[in-house]
């Protein structure tokens, strides 16, 4: 019968069975010792951080007392006083510890701003209400709460209205959408709680216009990129393709109603594509069989598409036959599919974003196209929508 000490290491957690053979005992004791070392290292790290912070706090406190006591005008000067607290002694401008700072000092002062550190997060896991009477250091513990970032912020879900139209935002609210926290994004900017942020705008360095950040890359593509080689390449491709791609090129991703708002030239139907759009759509649908877009895809016109979408989405109450609303519905679906991939709207190899750019350039040139909206991915709708509404809000 082996004594306990022979069957385990220093941690005493992993114990070999009593009838274990010597090799088993050694293996158990090595594993146990390794566990001890891991815990030892972790503990030392935490202990060091905490003890040094507390020792620093004791020093900061007593230095403050010393400078207060000497009422010297120069804060950097070392006052010649002797002060003693429970945690430290101040003498000849030097601070000496008294006792163990882990026992004598309970709070932690920031070594930079000398304000107390908030020790618990204000929200989420392990949250505690901070004392409202205390001004804390601005460095707060990070918040661990699903749907929120480390500062307890969340964002207006990227949606059709981009936080502009209340109507759109209501539609956006989906009980199944776990990623958008309840209440977040509801209403306009005024009604929003301060921790719900909307997407900002940025100034394009070339044309100095203010562009919503989610559209910035698209915008720069047309604003900067178009003037250069991309445009020439796109043009060359346009010529070589010659509109032979048929259906997939009727890429009026915008439903008819929207087109009224944004006059789109027919010529942009021949927008350059590296790959055939249809082939691409198939790939995408295969990867997501539950996707309602597949159904949609079979429908020949935008009108029927709209009806189907509405029945599949009882949430949508607005029955206006305005195509604008149908656009929103499409986007809503799209958002559900890609809710984790915010603003991740394009696909490799299928250059849909080059589409809108010529449109913008030429949009005064031609009337709205009379082609029926081709079956297509809602994703592209969003791309187009974003670009076209961008041009609407700020005409060149």
């Amino acid at each position, binding site marked *: 019968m082996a004594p306990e000490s022979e069957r385990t290491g*220093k941690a005493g957690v992993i114990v070999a069975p009593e009838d274990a053979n010597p090799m088993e005992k050694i293996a158990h004791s090595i594993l146990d*010792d*390794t566990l001890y*070392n891991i815990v*030892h*290292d972790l503990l*030392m790290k935490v202990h*060091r951080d905490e*003890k*040094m912070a507390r*020792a620093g706090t*004791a*020093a900061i406190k007593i*230095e403050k007392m010393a400078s207060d006591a000497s009422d010297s005008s120069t804060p950097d000067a070392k006052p010649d006083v002797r002060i003693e607290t429970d945690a*430290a002694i101040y003498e000849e401008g030097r*601070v*000496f*510890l*008294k006792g*163990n700072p*882990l026992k004598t000092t309970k709070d932690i002062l*920031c*070594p*930079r*701003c*000398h304000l107390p550190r908030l020790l618990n997060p204000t929200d989420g896991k392990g949250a505690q209400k901070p004392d409202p009477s205390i001004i804390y250091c*601005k*460095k*707060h513990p*990070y918040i*661990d709460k699903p749907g929120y*970032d*480390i*500062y307890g*912020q969340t*964002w207006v879900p990227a949606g059709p209205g981009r936080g502009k139209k209340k109507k759109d935002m209501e539609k956006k609210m989906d009980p199944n959408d776990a990623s958008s926290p309840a209440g977040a994004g509801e209403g306009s900017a005024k009604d929003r709680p301060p921790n719900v*942020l909307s*997407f*900002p705008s*940025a100034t394009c*360095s*070339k044309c100095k216009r203010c562009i919503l*950040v*989610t*559209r*910035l*890359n*698209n915008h*720069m*593509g047309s604003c*900067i*990129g178009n003037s250069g080689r*991309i445009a020439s390449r796109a043009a060359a491709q346009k010529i070589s393709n010659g509109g032979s791609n048929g259906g997939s090129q009727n890429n009026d991703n915008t439903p008819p109603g929207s087109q009224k708002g944004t006059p789109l030239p027919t010529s942009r139907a021949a927008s350059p594509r590296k790959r055939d759009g249809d082939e691409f759509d198939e790939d995408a649908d295969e990867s997501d069989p539950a996707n309602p877009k597949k159904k949609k895809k079979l429908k020949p016109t935008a009108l029927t598409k709209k009806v189907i979408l509405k029945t599949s989405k009882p949430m949508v109450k607005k029955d206006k036959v305005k195509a604008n609303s149908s656009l929103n519905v499409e986007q809503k679906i799209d958002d559900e599919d890609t809710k*984790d991939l*915010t*603003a991740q*709207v394009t696909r490799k*190899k299928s250059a849909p*974003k*080059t589409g809108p750019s010529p449109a913008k350039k030429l949009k005064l040139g031609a009337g709205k196209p009379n082609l029926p909206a081709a079956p297509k991915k809602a994703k592209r709708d969003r791309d187009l929508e974003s670009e076209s509404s961008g041009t609407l809000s700020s005409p060149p």
Partner: protein
Amino acid sequence: MAARPATPASPKNARIKSPQPGQPVFGCEHLQRLFNQDQATTNTSIHHYKTILRNIMELPPWEYQSAKMTDTGAIITPMTPTYLCLQCPSILTEEDCVKHGSKKSHRFYVESREGYLYCQMCDDFVYDPTLEELRLRKSGSGTFSGARKRKQDEMFAASDPAKDSPSYISSNTTAPSCKANGLRGIYNAGATCYQNVVLQSFLHNPILRNYYLSDAHSSAKCEVPYCLSCAMDDMFQEFYVAENTNGYTAANILSGFWISEKKAFENLVTTKEQDAHEFFQFLAEELHERNGDGKKPEIGSEHSCNCIIHQTFYGKIQSTTTCQHCNGVTNQVQSFLDLSLPLENLTQKKGKKGSSTKANAMTLQECLDEEYIKDDKCEYRCNNCDSMQQARRQTSLKLLPNVLSIQLKRFEFKQGRNERAAKLDTPVHFPLQLNMLPYTTKARTTDTTEHFELARSCVYELFSVVVHVGEIDTGHYVSYCRLGNQWFAFNDHKVEMASISDVLSARAYLLFYIVRSLA
């Protein structure tokens, strides 16, 4: 007790670190008493502490792990930490410290894993400013004085010694808010997540951070229009100085990127999703041109430059080709920005061995072994034989970079079936600490098994991981970055806390390691 060589006491008197505001002078009252006895005691104590640190960090473990039992006199070598007496050469187990203390009145012991000081009278570990500084320096750079500087130290070293004085520094620096910590998301400007992840890995790279925060490339002084380095400078300021916690809009980076005339990366300049690795290369080369000698790096050559990018990312790789006919050896040295590790061959090899998907998982070290330890056959034109010959080629790392970037080639262009590129989702286990010694040219030519100091200098610590989720055609990039000991997950504008297991279980695409002596 060969572990403690009796070196003569250094002629200079050991000095206690001068008092800093907000910091006690000594680790505890008892250490204060020890250091206040007389200069000789202080000298020997500090000298002993240095010797102990040198021993536990340089000597093989059995030297400092062998403790003599106080009762029986037997020598035991435990795996768990031993305690080295600061006042005499004894090595003790934790239990024996009390006995040793009461017998000899020696009250301070150094723990053998990291060199922390234990005070028996406090019955606690104490962190003395003077001794901690020595310990950190030793475990960091391997020296106490900091005389043997790494090259990036020279870069940051001011030419004027007066500029090194604390008063000069404090009067010429702006202290950022306590809130500014470099943790901000970056908004996705429309399929720009491939840029965001790379920018985050740059932002959390301590070398680049120090470079930009020390105003080494000031956007106020630079006159290049749409300079990407200025855009980086602005971004570093925004991240580490501003109090804003909202996401950052990388408009300047984006416009600099759109305007850039780099032909090699023409494909990148689109509104489509792109490869993060390509963007990393683009950004590195662009920043090199803005900060460096202006020469375009030639692929395959041994290009060295003193710019921040070269000092941070570039290492050297040596390919040794041995002719099978005449045994003639040709060495070729190339600079590298990153190491690209193919996964496909290894995946296939593993697939043959084990049929289950779990067996397919491999480690980063296996991938490195495959590339930088094993040799392969090739044909080459031997100068000696003056004909085409079979040769063995072996690649090893001649110079390790300060920041080691590793790309795991998850996107393979498959020949044959539709000639389409495919994504390999094979899990690759990667460590938080990576020892690169086995892959160095030095390890190949000399026996390094006893070189603990050398091995220590080749240890890298992970600080950033870029992950691609989704298919090859479309997907999303997210990244993880470490700040101190805490990991954070960056998903465009959203920053969340991440656990180490989140990080280590990620299907990494790009890995960024930083050499430990800098970390």
